[in-house]
């Protein structure tokens, strides 16, 4: 039970180093208090940085609302899209956000199935990130419609006209892929939250807080049968979510691969989109969790071990992405197809060549620094690299969407795409929206899984015991 005064630890807690996923000296109660304390901290005691950050994010949310208002009122023409570039920032951002939304499920489900115990401190956080990223992503396909008020026509619902969606269109597959992914992610995240919500219910100092958490905890009492069922359900959901990690971005890549536009019509897209998604997902996790662990003084819970593992995964997926780029370039030359080879040449040297150069720098060249152990273990360096990779992955989608469309088959209809202030505003606005959700999440729900960290405490205690007995 947490006592009357809740505040953050007074001084800097040291990082236990790259070999530990938890600082020594933690017991069950200290874990609950440390993680739950962040949530139960009164608003006025929030770190200054949280307040400033949340406020800035809120401003960006307002920018988003304004841009959406203008968009709905005047039309899609407020954006830079045109003929031939029918898709612009909206689709770039959609794919980018969906990609970011991959890390959470991957960490929770796949690493869970692979029994990677280092995931415990960051899985909750990255699952939340996934949900919010999918929420941001989900906005764009609706916003980018010429008549967004008719978006529901993409859903198969019975109607008097006997009209159904057109199943051959990848956009229709998207509807199902993204909505399934969003739903499963939400359920997975919520199921994982239930034991912690019960903990929060138990430690919350105020009655109204207790009531809210009690409702959310669905009557969890922590009995053995609860744990038994919980673990079965979680395992099943992890099994269900795992293929989705692969399928969502595969389907998103079909939006391009199914078309006939040079630069889009590529069979390599599904695997390289998935790798790219994981790449950007881990980058975003690091971008967010590094400042958070500093502000909330949680270096003992999110340790260098976590950061280094994530950095290694980034390096690995980054190399898959690099392979994807090189194969794309190779085959556009090897195909002998004049449209393909022109497309890649134009991508590299055309009017948008600078975006391609930046893409290669951000996604391939600079991240190679992660081979160096020293870099992986330098927190600020990893953070800067994660930002660079986020930018790089956004550029990748920009390059794919825009440079392929702007010069396709007939030179007479070549054009240029220049994003407008509303394009930028909407993009920046969704980042603000995403961050605001993250800020609120950190304040409202335990951002690190309490019970799973307790498990770690338990395991470590056992290990210590065994060690002592052996001596």
């Amino acid at each position, binding site marked *: 039970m947490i006592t009357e005064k809740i505040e953050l630890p007074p001084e800097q807690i040291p990082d236990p180093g790259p070999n530990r996923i938890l600082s020594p000296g933690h017991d069950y109660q200290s874990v609950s208090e440390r993680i739950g304390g962040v949530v139960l901290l009164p608003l006025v005691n929030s770190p200054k940085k949280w307040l400033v950050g949340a406020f800035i994010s809120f401003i960006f949310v307002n920018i988003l609302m304004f841009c959406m208002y203008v968009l709905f009122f005047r*039309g899609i*023409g407020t954006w830079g899209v045109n003929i031939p570039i029918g*898709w612009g920032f909206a689709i770039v951002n959609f794919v980018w956000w969906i990609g970011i939304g991959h890390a959470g499920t991957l960490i929770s489900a796949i690493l869970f199935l692979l029994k990677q115990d280092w995931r415990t401190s960051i899985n909750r956080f990255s699952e939340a990130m996934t949900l919010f990223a999918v929420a941001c992503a989900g906005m764009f396909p609706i916003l980018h419609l010429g008549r967004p008020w008719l978006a529901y026509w993409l859903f198969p619902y019975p109607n008097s006209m006997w009209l159904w*969606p*057109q199943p051959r269109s990848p956009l229709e597959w998207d509807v199902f892929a993204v909505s399934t992914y969003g739903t499963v992610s939400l359920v997975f995240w919520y199921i994982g939250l239930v034991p912690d919500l019960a903990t929060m219910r138990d430690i919350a100092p105020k009655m109204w807080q207790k009531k809210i958490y009690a409702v959310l905890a669905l009557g969890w009492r922590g009995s053995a049968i609860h744990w038994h069922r919980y673990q079965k359900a979680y395992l099943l959901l992890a099994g269900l979510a795992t293929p989705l990690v692969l399928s969502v971005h595969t389907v998103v890549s079909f939006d391009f691969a199914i078309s006939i*536009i040079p630069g889009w019509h590529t069979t390599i897209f599904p695997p390289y989109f998935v790798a790219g998604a994981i790449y950007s997902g881990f980058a975003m996790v690091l971008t967010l969790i590094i400042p958070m662990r500093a502000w909330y003084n949680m270096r003992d819970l999110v340790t260098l071990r976590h950061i280094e593992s994530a950095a290694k995964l980034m390096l690995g997926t980054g190399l898959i992405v690099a392979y994807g780029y090189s194969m794309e370039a190779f085959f556009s030359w090897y195909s002998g197809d004049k449209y393909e080879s022109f497309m890649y040449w134009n991508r590299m040297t055309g009017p948008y060549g600078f975006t391609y150069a930046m893409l290669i720098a951000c996604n391939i060249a600079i991240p190679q620094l992660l081979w160096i152990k020293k870099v992986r273990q330098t927190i600020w360096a990893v953070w800067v690299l994660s930002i660079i990779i986020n930018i790089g992955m956004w550029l990748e989608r920009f390059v794919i969407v825009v440079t392929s469309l702007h010069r396709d088959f007939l*030179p007479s209809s070549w*054009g240029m795409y220049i994003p407008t202030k509303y394009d930028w505003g909407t993009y920046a606005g969704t980042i603000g929206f995403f961050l605001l959700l993250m800020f609120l999440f950190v304040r409202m729900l335990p951002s690190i899984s309490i019970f799973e960290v307790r498990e770690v405490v338990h395991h470590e205690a056992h290990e210590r015991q065994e060690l002592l007995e052996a001596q």
Partner: protein
Amino acid sequence: MSDMHSHNGHSRNGGLIPLEALVEKPSKRIDIEELRKKLAEGRGPQFWRTLDEAAESEEMREYVEQEFPGLSGQIPQGVDRRSLLKVMAASLAMAGAAACTKQPKELIVPYVRQPENVIPGVPLFYATAMTTGGYARGLLVESHLNRPTKVEGNPDHPASLGATTYFEQASVLDVYDPDRSENVLNEGRLSTWGEFTGKFSTEAQELATRKGEGLAILSGPMTSPTFLDQMQSLAQQFPSSKWYVSDPTVNPAIASAAKKIAGRNAFVSYDLSKADVVVSLEADFLNCGPAALRYARQFAKKRAIDNGETPVRLYAIESSPSVSGSLADHRFPVKSSAVPSIAYQLAAACGVSASAPGGAPDWVNIVAQDLQKNKGRSVVIPGEWQPESVHLAAYAINAALGNIGSTVNVLEGVEPENTHSLEELVNDLNNGHVETLVILGQNPVYTAPVTLNFQQAMRKARMVVRLGQFFDETSRWSHWHIPEAHYLETWSDARAFDGTITIQQPLIEPLYNGKSAHEVISILLGKPDQNSHEIVKGYWQNRYKGGNFDDFWQISLHDGWLANTAIGTIKGNAVALPALDQQPVNGLEVVYRPDPTIADGKYSNNGWLQECPKPQTKMTWDNIVAISPKQAGQLKVDKGDMLRVTVNGKSVVGPTWVLPGHAEDSITVYFGYGREGSGRVGNKIGYNAYLIQDASTPYVAAGSVAKTGEQYRIANTQETQTMAGREPVRDAELAEYREHPNFPTRFEKPQPYSESLYKDVKWPYEGYKWGMTIDLNVCTGCSACIIACQAENNIAVVGKDQVARGRHMHWIRVDRYYSGDLDQPEMYNQPIPCMHCEDAPCEVVCPVAATVHSNEGLNEMVYNRCVGTRYCSNNCPYKVRRFNFYLYSDWNTESLYGVRNPDVTVRSRGVMEKCSYCVQRIQEAKITSDKEGRRVRDGEILTACQQVCPTEAITFGDLNDKGSKVAKSQQLPRKYGLLDDLNTHPRTQYLGYVRNSNEALKSNKRSA
């Protein structure tokens, strides 16, 4: 009293934002419809309060003033409620009446059916005529419940043959132009026609006492027999009056040269159906002039190659690439001012005794040899902007080659004699010889060369009467402005180039009580009560010597023209060539041309023409300064860089356009822009080239050009004009074609149909199977199809800003490509409508099935179902789809409702649209044929682009009908499908382009 706007101002616009670029708010005006609605809703005391408030509002006062000019003066400022309410009651009733258009009171005769058969939804066609430069082109105009909506050429008329240019197509929009002048104005105050006739009759009586001394009439060129008859009467009644004729789009040298050739007024016409070699001395004969459509048809027929014919060979000698020049087999860019010397050199080389300057280029002799090889089967056509000497030289060459009587005919002139020029008018004005000036239609304050200073001169007249469709530059400086009736609103007649008399019958009562030139002249003749119908019909009644006049009149109106009124040929004299009247300009020459789509500025308020990509540049909404690539390199300018063009110390600033194939040391400027008295569409765009035009050197002058360093945003619809290694247009030399008639597909492997994911669902198309063929060999790129499509399919105008952003809406575009040497490039035109692919990439990617395939092979767009993902456009390899990024269609300007084709949906914001093969026309023909229990016949359906095409480059029909033209054309070996390798199976197919180069000019061959 309360402001009317609080009652009715805010409800109508809803969430719809009009396009700023196009729609400025018109001046505050009462919305009478809104008021009527308000009143209809009102009950009891509330009703009366509304009416009271309305009566006392400023807007109502304005409205009454506009509706009942003159009355407002009688209403004292203090509110006389009763009388104002009385007027209002009338106004409201009238507003209701004005909302429905009225059929003219007089009998007009439909082309096909009797008017009593008017069936709503079934259009009627009426024969009428539009004049350009005074000469008529016969038209058939589609009328939906007495609204003219679409102009077609009259297939039986010699100057049209069923085709039109884009000017005729776009003219129907002018009828409904909300900026047209609506009132008679006297020194800026509202007046009435009655008041004017009173004043003007008095003036006429006064003038009569002086035998018309001081009376001046300025008009454009006229061939109307009725008008000429009126003018003859005028000359009898006012022997000292003078008639001045001027039109900035007509070069008087053509007529003066013809007069020298024939000894009297004459017209030199050509018969290209007999020509094997054509030399153009800067003539845009396929596109400009009263007979252009006929020449284009003849020329296209002579370019036929499919049955082993040898096609006509065209040499074009010109400064700025013209529509005709783009089709030339050899094009020689020379300075416009050097064309006279070259004409003389060519004349000398053809055996004419001419004092030709030396130093002729080699190709002159080669061209001359080719001409001499084809004696009697060749023709030299002088340029419409060239001086007399070129016209005489061309005639002399034709005479020397024995072409007279074969390819060249001298026709008796139909234009009046004893008219005077604009320069003479300015002299007379300045010398105080003109007291009363009547300007019929022309806008000289804007179009007169700056050196004439017309505005100053005009102000010396005591009374200036202006008849004009707009209250424009000239009207602003006139004492009286009379709104002019549009040609679709009034009666007249005119002659075609060959003299064929063509009747212009109205399709609609003048929307704004416009008057015709006939009616204005009639006041002077002492018959102020006569309307155009009485004048025109009266003239023919007097003149008709046959039996039943009513039958004759009925037939004439029905056909639109009078049979056997073509004028015979006359003998030309042997002309001795005078000394050269124009030496090549030393250094830089400035060439003046009417704008390709806006002409002299008379179409500047026409949104369709403003947005029509200009054939050579694909520019919209601006005039440019065209320069050669070399010159651009020297000046270090690229397109959009501002250039200052200076002639005789006067200068204008306009944006550069680098035009491949433009002659060096030569720049072309275009008239028609930089206006201030046009309207909300045409005002304040571009530069005014008249400001550097010198009356003594009106078409080409020495000048200089300098870079200003400024940049200008230009809106063109095609950025890239090279083929970038692709082959959208496939061409061959004649020899190559003879050897490999299948040259376009020679190196292409046929794509097996089996290479499809959906191979089992290949539809058999057992009923109709619509297809289109476009013959690139005869497409001139004249762009009439673009405007015809726009008129037929209610295509919105989007404005310059949106075009610059790549969002123009044309369903058919004409691509322009260059290849080879930049200075002397090959030029290609390629019209691109929807391909209606059998395996359409757009269809599979639409998530809501808004674009689907019909069982006749049409790729259909279902606007209602479209949610606007734009995936279809992305996936269209031809990029023919157009998207409504905003609410582009003008849903608010009521006057524009009239021009819309009721058979085609007016699209809203957020939906995709594209060419439908004019599905409404297909359906109409199918209904007709179903009723008659037969299949649709070949040629029964003409798409709008096909119908307007002067060269019949477009063929449409049923591919299942093996005898149909289109099925036959798709059997031709030079047929190919655009991007066929994508396995889209396009229904629109192209026929390859074949060039008939001269072996002797191989070194001059333009291809790389």
